[in-house]
């Protein structure tokens, strides 16, 4: 199988610069805690990430160390944040998506089966393409896991989390198993309840203008990002397909051109060559669009969901607070269990205010991050598109020169 060739990839990341490869997020690098994924290994159906930490914080035994983690352990860490009441007032950095090589593996398999039906050149070409695709997916999943860790490390509160430190430092298996069926079912029901609750809670009008505005804004924004993300994926896929078509045509022309050595066949060869080169550029364009546009939108889809979750938790706390108030009034009226009602109300009030305070800052930070990330990616997208268009242009003009010169 193809993957075996990629197993030994200890240094495949070495050509890129070390340091947070935060493609989608603009983060400050803080010397007190720096986290990155220095290496990754792809086995049959698992990916093993080497998480490398550099820190001057006293919490850690050493200043620099590495551990090996798998995807499930990232999820465990993320879920522990979500379940922690203390962090209710923060935007929890979205969990990285599961590494998904299924599509790529399927294609490689199909290629292997169809080997007999195409020429040797076609086969090698397609094989190279698919290998490159596999590698690209691999790099992407590494980047997304890394971004998650960097976000946590950059967050003033989350970075101090104990689970996080264990995750970074404990150099043995965390024994985090994936959720079994029962737990998955529980999760499913929890989600159903949560979304139902979310609907109820969303109806509550907020006294605070800021949050009211944020609520409406986030709802609309999230939906539109979702739409844009789906459409950009489709567009980029079409782009890749169009590039692939050109490749097959180039191969056919090449076959024709090698039939004999008449003038006509020489033309076939030249045109075939040209198409091959333009196709490579088109594929690069699609890949860059994928990286700068599609990934950006996907990431902010997840982040805006996390922000919405924060707002939900706050609204929930508000409802609880209001309910506690009502209960207190009732208790005072009946003059029964007043103390209990009072403490409960105090708790709710405190919780609500704590969440509100941090939520405000979180949402402002979210906006700043978002704007910066979009700016960076849109600028890079435009620059790359320009670069490729100019490259294409040069290629075409030189080929034209050759063809015209031969007249």
């Amino acid at each position, binding site marked *: 199988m193809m993957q075996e060739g990629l197993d030994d990839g200890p240094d495949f990341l070495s050509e890129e610069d070390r340091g947070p490869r935060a493609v989608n997020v603009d983060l400050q690098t803080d010397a007190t805690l720096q986290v990155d994924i220095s290496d990754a290994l792809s086995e049959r159906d698992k990916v093993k990430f080497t998480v490398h930490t550099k820190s001057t914080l006293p919490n850690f035994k050493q200043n620099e160390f590495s551990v090996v983690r798998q995807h499930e352990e990232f999820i465990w860490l993320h879920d522990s944040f979500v379940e922690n009441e203390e962090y209710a007032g923060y935007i929890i950095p979205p969990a990285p998506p599961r590494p998904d090589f299924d599509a790529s593996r399927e294609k490689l398999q199909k290629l292997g089966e169809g080997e007999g039906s195409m020429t040797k050149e076609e086969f090698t070409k397609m094989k190279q393409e698919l290998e490159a695709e596999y590698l690209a997916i691999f790099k992407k999943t590494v980047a997304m896991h890394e971004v998650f860790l960097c976000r946590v490390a950059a967050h003033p509160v989350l970075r101090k989390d104990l689970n996080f430190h264990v995750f970074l430092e404990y150099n043995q298996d965390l024994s985090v198993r994936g959720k079994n069926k029962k737990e998955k079912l529980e999760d499913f029901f929890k989600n159903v309840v949560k979304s139902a609750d979310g609907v109820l809670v969303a109806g509550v009008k907020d006294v605070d203008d800021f949050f009211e505005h944020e609520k409406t*804004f986030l709802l*609309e*924004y999230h939906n*539109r*990002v979702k*739409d*844009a993300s789906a*459409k*950009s994926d*489709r*567009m980029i*896929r*079409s*782009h890749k*397909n*169009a590039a692939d*078509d*050109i490749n*097959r*045509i180039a191969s*056919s*022309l090449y*076959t*024709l051109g090698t*039939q004999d050595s*008449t*003038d*006509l066949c020489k*033309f076939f060869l030249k*045109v075939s060559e*040209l198409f091959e080169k*333009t196709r490579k550029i088109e594929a690069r364009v699609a890949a860059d669009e994928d990286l700068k546009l599609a990934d950006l939108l996907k990431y902010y889809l997840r982040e805006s969901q996390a922000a919405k979750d924060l707002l939900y938790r706050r609204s929930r706390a508000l409802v609880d607070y209001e309910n506690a108030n009502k209960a207190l009034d009732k208790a005072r009226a009946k003059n029964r269990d007043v103390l209990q009602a009072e403490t409960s109300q105090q708790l709710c009030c405190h919780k609500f205010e704590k969440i509100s305070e941090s939520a405000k800052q979180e949402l402002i930070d979210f*906006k700043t991050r*978002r*704007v910066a990330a*979009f*700016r960076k990616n*849109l*600028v890079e*997208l*435009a*620059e790359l*598109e*320009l670069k490729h*268009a*100019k490259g*294409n*242009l040069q290629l*075409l*003009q030189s*080929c*034209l020169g050759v*063809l*015209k010169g031969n*007249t």
Partner: protein
Amino acid sequence: MQDVVLSQNRNPVTVAAVKLLKPELFLLFSGKVEVSLESDESVFTVFSLEASQPASLPAEDISTNSNGPKQDLLFDDDPEDLFAEATEEVSLDSPERDVLLSDGPSFYCFQMNLKVCFFVQIEEEEGGDSFDIHISVSEPREVGDFMFFLSPSSRQTSMSLFKQKDFSVKRRFSDFLGLHSKLASKYLHIGYIVPPAPEKSIVGMTKVKVGKEDQSSNEFVEKRRSALERYLMRTVKHPILLKDPDVLQFLESSEQRWTPANGNKAADAVNKMTIKMNESDAVKAAAFENLDVQLRKLHASVKLSVNTAQFAKSAAMLGNSEDHTALSRALSQLAEVEEKIDQLHQDQANGDFYLFSELRGLRTTGVFEHRMKTWQKWQDSQMLLQKKREAEAKLQFTNKPDKLQQAKDEIKELEGKVQQGERDFEQISKTIRKEVSRFEKERVKDFKTIIVKYLESLVLTQQQLIKYWEAFLPEAKAIS
């Protein structure tokens, strides 16, 4: 506005006068009718049709259904009349029924559109030892179905091939296809390389039919026009094809005789048959088939265009809901850029399609397959002969004189067939060899021009792309 008078000396009919409005003709009639349109001094018969039941009127082109509509049409010698010395055809297009008159139970009203006419000019160049015929196809006059006019220009030398010196004919696109299929059925099986007709493009045609008056449908019309021109030029450049009576009739006759597109399908079906005779031919055939498939796939770049347009809209929506002003503006700009790129993709796809349909014309497999078929026939009859000889040998030992005689007769017949098969095969091989060398010479020149044009269009596309992104970049940088 012309008055239409339904002539009463043709068929019993009760009709009223109808006003002819370009481009619509409202016609009232009942029963069988042959309609003449009168316009000042000119009278011409347009069509004859039957309308016995209102419910079952075909929405097809009536002109092909009717039996030889008489079309001796004369026009005023109006110098501004574009249709001078040309025939004009008006035919039914999706008849709509509308009862206009109240008296009489069975009046039907039809709406017809004038068809589009392409003018094809045939010019002859002066002097030269071998004749040089130049054919040009002019632009269509009206949007609708295509019609082509072959109209004359100055003819210096007299051509014995053509009866007239000056002539113009109009032809529909499907007529060209019909001509091609006829030539293919006549000549392919004896080894001549018949130039392929331009492709039908459903995308382009629907756009034009819908009446979209935008740049891309004009480009489509233009591309089709030039493709038809090239096709005719190639056909007349072929020394044998030029002398073919069908070709001459196509170029000259004012009558319409070509069967519509159905004929073309037969030719295509023949082309698709493959009989493997030897490796290289088969590989060539396979490579061309492959190319065909891929070329059609490239039209999936139409899909890319659709998806790009959708993304552009989505990005615009996102920009709307973004509350950071500079970012919002940048996103709207991105949406605009993507829209423009989408337009570029569409134009490029049109260009691709025509390039590849021209490349397709480089196929010579049609003739090769016929050669294979001839060879196969010859081999088959040889094998049959062998079998019959064996059977005859066996019969020698039995006492059946009449059966023996029958066998001897059959053998004689088969021997004749075998000889004919061998002759046919050698003939077709010789012809093909000549054709291929002539073909190569012609096509190399053609191919070059086509490819160069295509690359130039690609260059333009890339230059446009650069312009768009360069305009976008400062907007993106302005986000703060």
